[in-house]
């Protein structure tokens, strides 16, 4: 029971930490830090609340298998989406852009500075 209380306190501290750090702009570190804290919290829950630390090893392998395949799903999809159009034979304009141009809407012009101009270029 004492372990459980200790883990619970740790989780609260980490939650406060992630909120506080997100209020401060750390530039490129924002996302990795938030994810690291989240992974730390998840590990605490898995190891102590779910008692995997003391459990049959098979259950741990099952969990790692799940995490492994989520990473595979994510990384292999990013192989495509992060490099989309690397053959330079794909038109950068999306259907959304074309529609926006066709309607010639003022709406599109309004924010061309902040978002729409930069966004499709990432493709």
């Amino acid at each position, binding site marked *: 029971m004492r372990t459980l209380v200790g883990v619970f306190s740790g989780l609260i501290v980490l939650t406060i930490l992630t909120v506080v750090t997100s209020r401060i702009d750390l530039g490129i570190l924002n996302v990795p830090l938030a994810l690291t804290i989240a992974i730390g919290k998840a590990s605490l829950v898995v190891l102590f609340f779910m008692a995997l630390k003391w459990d049959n090893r098979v259950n741990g392998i099952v969990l790692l298998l799940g995490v492994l395949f989520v990473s*595979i799903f994510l990384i*292999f*999809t990013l192989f*495509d989406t992060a*490099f*989309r159009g*690397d053959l330079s034979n794909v038109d950068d304009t999306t259907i959304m852009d074309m529609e926006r141009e066709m309607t010639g809407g003022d709406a599109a012009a309004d924010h061309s500075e902040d978002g729409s101009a930069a966004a499709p270029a990432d493709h």
Partner: protein
Amino acid sequence: MSVATATTEIPGKQVTYLNHEKSIKSWLLTLDHKRIGLLYMSTIVVVFLAAGILALLVRIELMSPGRTIVDAQTYNQFFSLHGILMVFLFIVPSVPAILGNFIMPIQLGAIDVAFPRLNLASYYIYMVGGVLVVAAMLLGQIDTGWTFYTPYSSRLGAPIIFMTLAIFIAGFSSILTGINFIVTIHKMRAPGLTWNRLPLFVWSIYATSIVQVLATPVIGITMLLLLLEKTLGIGIFDPALGGDPILFQHFFWFYSHPAVYIMILPAFGIISDLMGTFSRHEVMGYKFVALSSVAIAFLGFLVWGHHMFVSGQSAVSSIVFSLITYLIGIPTGVKVINWVGTMYKGSVSLKTPMLYALSFLFLFSIGGFTGVMLGVLGVDIHLHDTYFVVAHFHYVMMGGTVVALIGGLHYWWPKITGKMYNETAGRIACALIFIGFNVTFFTQFVLGTKGMPRRYYDYQPQYADLHALSTYGSWILAAGLFLVLFTFIHSLMRGAAAPSNPWGGASLEWTHTSSPPSPHNFDEQPIVTHGPYDYHHYYHGDGQSAEAELAPPSKA
């Protein structure tokens, strides 16, 4: 297995799982893995018949250019429903749900699977999925193919909602079966049945179940997102709303490529058991064959992008996926070599199941090699979306899985029903299927290389002869399949009583149970002392299996 006593048979008096309870309720609400296997079998056969008839209609429509029997819209619906039924309701559940349910727990020396109630629930969840597919069919207008590519699918009418829900729900059935089987194999093995003594069928079911558990949830979320794309327009997949249709293809194939291993891996297991028993020779490279199943299951997750070489995905991912696709050839080749090696210096007996196993070896090898060809980037650009792909797919799925399933059904038929079937009819049916299949689908390899695109309703006249030939082949194939059905029905009505071990098998379902098994499989807990392919224990020692049909190999 040390005490090689099979249950003695007293014909007519024996209490079996088939006759110990007789009410309809005792069948529909059974928790017995054997009866659930039969429930699946009856449903899956109906699905196969329906989807098979659709295939025949598609082939007849394609017999000549232009309209032959139906209009283009109906044709599109026919081939879509053929694909959806065959993939999601027939071939994914086929081997695991029928033979996996029936045979696997007995091969483990277990009384039942780990979660019998969950097992029954899986069946009814599968039925709900099936009913929704039928509802979507009756509402019409599903002409997406079995792949449901966006944005076309997300802009179709209401029936697509039923269809996505159906796939979502049928997926649950698959997941629950997978979980059940993994736990069963981990926790329910008989004393002495170590991992190295598991029959290879069990290994393959194990690998399949892992894939089912890991991949199926993703088709669930994909179908859910498709449903939301259709109903709310959430803009994840629809390019007109800023979404990315290629992302849908990633989601879809993250499940559907591993799913083809869900379809073929159990077939590998059947073939391993058949090769061993009918060669009377220990399966060569047991550990390699067992672990290659696991290797295929793992690698199967890393290659889904080879379905998308011409989709507009990045060249980086095309190259990565293409390279890993080649790797799949290694564990698959390990299996084929070991099967051939098993027959070497074995005492090969060309019974019907073995004929199916040999057909499998031939057809699957063609399917596998053409698969490697399609994994080559440059070749795929030319062959993509042609009949070459259709032929490859059917060589693996029909020539592989379906042929293995039918072979397995012949093999375990005496165990399941307690009846023998007519050997001659079985062999003729196998020959018809083999010939009909090759005429139908080898022709399509040729059509594909000549540039005939898949899914087309109409085509140039120069393809007409080959299309007609393929259609004639489909009739031979259908005749073979109906002969199988007829043979089995005839066996049920007139078949001779089967001995407990008609083939001289050495795994628990042959050595320690009667045919058909008693309600709790075993009279006493079996204790395993040797491997599943140690035939010499039975060949010389025990009278029962020595008198079993071990006639010298006859010519076929």
